[in-house]
């Protein structure tokens, strides 16, 4: 039966646990707690909950060095951006008529230049030839570039209001020239199949962390998995990276995606070895279950005795998680040799 004082005692116990001031009636509450069995029992339960929460020490939620490096770099860039960028304001003296005249002059000049170079066609017209881009032939498109423009000879088109980041200013030189440096973001869309070299290189880079987050890495793994679901092939670089990811990535979710992608590929000795190693060594049961699926497939396709033996050992391993064992046994029963 609950004591009439229980609400007040509960508040007193919680204050004690959280280090809050217990109030004027602390002594009275403590005395009641010492005398009342029901309240003492309730206090013990609350203390037990409080102690149990300490079992989550947050040890898995520590800042990794790669994340810390990415984040501090992003913060430094953001501070520079926030304190250097000055919004562009047109001079008040520029009248609308002058602006219209400038636009017309630019249009006429563009037309004359285009006609002089023999290319008057626009997209959609019969004579249009697109500029060779990253999707044609074996063009190499550098994603990291630095250019210096001579302001006396170049026009800068800022009409799309591009976001100028990391702006820096250099003071005037002997000739009175100043320099303004900045980064602009250019969005690329790379279209292709996972086995196409350009896309394979991009996915490898993203799976290696170039996307700057675990989420981007996971998405790249998803794309590879999706591409292999129908038995599609992937480049050897991707297979090697998936194997390395499965062996070394600290995040079990990432390892799970790597195992899934490897399990869905047409089996090869390399994918088989990676999955067998994961089944033997990975601490995460969800990863090991995917390894079981992949090894069962390898056993059938490669007519591979070592895969069967690995599965057999798992199925009879008393120290293995029960669900992994049953999945291994089930896989063995379905293998067609």
């Amino acid at each position, binding site marked *: 039966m609950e004591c009439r004082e229980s609400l007040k005692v*509960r*508040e007193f116990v*919680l204050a004690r646990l*959280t*280090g*809050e001031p217990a109030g004027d009636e602390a002594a009275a509450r403590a005395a009641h707690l010492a005398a009342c069995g029901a309240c003492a029992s309730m206090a013990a*339960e*609350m203390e*037990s*909950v*409080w102690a*149990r*929460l300490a*079992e*989550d*020490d*947050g*040890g*898995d*939620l*520590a*800042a990794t060095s790669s*994340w*810390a490096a*990415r*984040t*501090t770099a*992003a*913060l*430094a860039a*953001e*501070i*520079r951006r*926030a*304190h250097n960028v000055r919004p562009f304001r047109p001079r008040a003296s520029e009248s609308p008529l002058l602006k219209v005249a400038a636009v017309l002059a630019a249009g006429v000049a563009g037309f004359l230049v285009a006609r002089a170079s023999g290319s008057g066609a626009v997209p959609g017209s019969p004579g249009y030839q697109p500029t060779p881009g990253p999707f044609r032939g074996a063009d190499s498109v550098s994603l990291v570039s630095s250019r210096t423009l001579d302001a006396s000879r170049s026009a800068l088109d800022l009409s799309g209001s591009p976001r100028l980041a990391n702006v820096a200013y250099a003071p005037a030189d002997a000739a009175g020239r100043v320099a303004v440096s900045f980064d602009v973001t250019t969005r690329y869309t790379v279209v292709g199949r996972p086995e196409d070299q350009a896309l394979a290189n991009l996915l490898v880079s993203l799976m290696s962390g170039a996307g700057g*987050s*675990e*989420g981007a890495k*996971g998405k790249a793994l998803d794309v590879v998995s999706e591409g292999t679901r129908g038995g599609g092939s992937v480049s050897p670089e991707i297979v090697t990276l998936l194997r390395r990811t499965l062996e070394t990535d*600290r*995040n*079990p*979710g990432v*390892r*799970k995606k790597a195992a899934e992608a490897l399990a869905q590929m047409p089996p090869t000795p390399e994918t088989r070895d990676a999955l067998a190693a994961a089944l033997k060594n990975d*601490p*995460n*049961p*969800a*990863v090991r279950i995917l390894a079981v699926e992949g090894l069962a497939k390898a056993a059938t396709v490669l007519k591979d005795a070592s895969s069967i033996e690995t599965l057999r050992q798992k199925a009879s391993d008393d120290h293995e*998680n029960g*669900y992994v064992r049953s999945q291994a046994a089930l896989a063995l029963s379905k293998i067609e040799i």
Partner: protein
Amino acid sequence: MEAERTSPGPEADLEALELVRAGDPAGATRLFQRWSTPLLRFTGRMLGDPAEAEEVTQDVFLKVIARASQYDGRASVASWLFAIAANACRDRLRRSARRPSVPLDAVAEAPGPDLPVDLRLVERQKREAVRRALSRLSDEQREVLVLARYHGLPYAEIARALSISEGAVKTRMFRAVETLKSLFSEGETPWNAASR
């Protein structure tokens, strides 16, 4: 309480924030060094997903830079940081219209090469069980409990950080502890109950 409430102290936080306001990246680095792990743990426990926690925590620090001039000193820098983090977590949970589910693979192995594998496994299972129980609290109860239990914030600071009354903090704490009491007394859930 985790280790964040130790030296160098609130004055150092204020100095770092002043540097951020003045456009000095060293200020952001100092705040990051002191608060990245506590905030990562807060967002991790709120969201139940380490990868999302990293993304949200990074966003929190970017917001700190953007809003540094808005800090008015009424609450400690710590409370202000947790307030931004709590809002960011609420936004994330609302946008994805989900409750944190803590799948089996969301709780990574903590780095601890000195411990034998079996002990590490036991520790991890205990951590998973607590994290799973936390995920079953309401978002409001969880944020109050996590701030009090793991980050040592007093009721008054929690109230300021979450823009609620101290009475509401107490009520949510009571309810959170009551819910956890019944969840813990249910015993261990199956290993894959919350996964997939």
